[in-house]
């Protein structure tokens, strides 16, 4: 009796998970169909598959948009790590007055919606001729992700046993060696988690990208949104473009799932 119940719950769990995952599976499946098959009703669950739609997507120049997304995401993530690691280190291990205030300040900037700063940012960038500039976009992404990164990084630093740091200090390690040789290796999984989360947020960002880029620096999300003109059949090619757009993050998220979960849970709870 108990066993039957348990099996039933497991089956129900799988059905529900399948429903949640269905849109993504359907997107990938549709991307491999012909336009005719993709738009057929009733939907075709068996169809001839090919990568033709992907060729069309690349012919429409998606490569350069993906490259822009990559530049902005990787660049901003590196900058965030460069700023957040020392800051979190000082906030956790080194003596500093008013740790609470500083932490509170960082997290409060995250509560400020993009709406709060978009207008001045737009006009300043326009004035200095930096609209449609991938560096400018990357800097803004770094500012957007910095608070979460500091917050998460600090929770990871809090897990470093103080004795190790003290031992290093007695050994006479100066600040830089202490940070680089002693603390950093212990932190690598945490850094990976922070980097991954910053990368995901930047890669998926739409609001700033739409408003601040037009062509040269346009990233994938606004490109996707302008991809559909509503004429003719486009489901298969749209699915192919969307699959390409979401694939890097999904793969990264799956591979580093442990770090991701730990990072989100740590950042959220500690």
């Amino acid at each position, binding site marked *: 009796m108990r066993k039957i119940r348990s099996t039933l*719950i497991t089956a129900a*769990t*799988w059905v529900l*998970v399948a429903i*949640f*995952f269905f*849109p993504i599976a*359907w*997107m990938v499946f549709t991307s491999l169909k012909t336009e005719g098959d993709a738009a*057929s*009703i009733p939907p075709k669950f068996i169809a001839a598959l090919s990568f033709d739609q992907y060729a069309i997507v690349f012919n429409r120049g998606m490569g350069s948009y993906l490259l822009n997304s990559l530049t902005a995401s990787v660049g901003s993530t590196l900058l965030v790590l460069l*700023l*957040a690691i*020392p*800051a979190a280190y*000082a906030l956790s291990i*080194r*003596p500093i*007055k008013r740790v*609470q205030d500083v932490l509170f*300040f960082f997290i409060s900037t995250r509560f*400020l*919606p*993009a*709406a*709060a*700063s*978009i*207008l*001045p940012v737009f006009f*300043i960038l326009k004035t200095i001729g930096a609209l449609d500039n991938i560096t400018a976009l990357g800097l*803004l992404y*770094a500012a957007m992700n*910095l608070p979460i990164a500091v917050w998460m990084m600090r*929770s990871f630093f809090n897990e470093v046993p103080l004795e190790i740091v003290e031992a290093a200090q007695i050994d006479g390690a100066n600040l830089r060696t202490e940070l680089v040789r002693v603390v950093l290796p212990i932190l690598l999984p945490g850094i990976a988690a922070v980097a991954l989360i910053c990368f995901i947020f930047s890669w*998926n960002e*739409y*609001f700033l990208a739409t*408003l601040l880029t037009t062509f040269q620096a346009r990233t994938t*999300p*606004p490109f*996707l*949104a302008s991809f*559909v003109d509503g004429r003719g059949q*486009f*489901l298969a090619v*749209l*699915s192919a473009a*969307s699959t390409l757009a*979401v694939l890097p*993050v999904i793969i990264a*998220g*799956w591979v580093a*799932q442990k770090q991701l*979960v730990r990072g*989100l*849970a740590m950042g*959220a*709870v*500690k």
Partner: protein
Amino acid sequence: MTTTIEVPTATQVHRATQAGIAHKKKARASRALVLPALVFSVILTQVPFLVTIYFSLLNWNQLRPSEIKFAWFKNYAVVFTGPDFLPSLFATVVITGSSVILSLLLGLFFAVLLDRKFVGRGLARTLMITPFLVMPAAAALIWKWSLLDVNVGMVNWALHLVGLSAIAWNTDLPVVTIIMMLTWQYTPFMMLILLAGLQSQSREVLEAASVDGAGPWRTFQWMTLPHLRQYIEIATLLGSIMLLQAFDPIAIMTKGTGGTKTLSYLLYERAFIGLDVGQAAAFGVVTVAVTIGVATIALRTLFKVFINGGER
């Protein structure tokens, strides 16, 4: 008897001052480590916000760039007396509130299901977190055209199978569409945090409860839920903050029609379609005020956690 007054020796004094100097040096070094991040953050987020406040006091339409004038609180008067603000505030509250509550409940449900031991649990968890990883713009497009489309959408086909007629989701039920989309996207996020909470529960206490004859529902109600409280609060806070700023599905699926014109979409429309910078800035400032309002309520809880987590 001789009384000895302890006089610190020269070396001791020397050591003490040295320690003091070392401490000061360390503190200065620490400040130097925090400063770059702090300055960067202030320049790119706080300063623009101050400028937004200044903009909101200007009479500035992009069509007449030569006529920028100081207008005091005229824009705010327009915001509060105009026909757009209240519906927009209402839309924001409805959409954010429903999505937070629904994704929290579903997230809790999934967290409990995926905390059990069963065949393929790892794979189920992996598949379950994926909606949160998917680019919101791509998800909105796929939902709009491939799942919800009135002619070729899968959802409408499924409705047809059970004998219901097709629904033009984007135009007939725009609010429901947006809430559905956001709930789908944020349920995995809520689930992740709550799952971390479930896993941090002590197994022994739960076993003891079951030995004492408490049924699974009672154990859940009296032990698991109180334990999860902190996690639920944080999930709600972070979820609300992110959902308040949700823009992509609205811009892509409904364009703010049919009661989905939230504050962040209204601001976008005013500034970049309507070209009225002053008014848009005023909307921006009000949006921030609303966000802060929501956040302060939630922040009180967070701050408690902060204090506890701040000490080490």
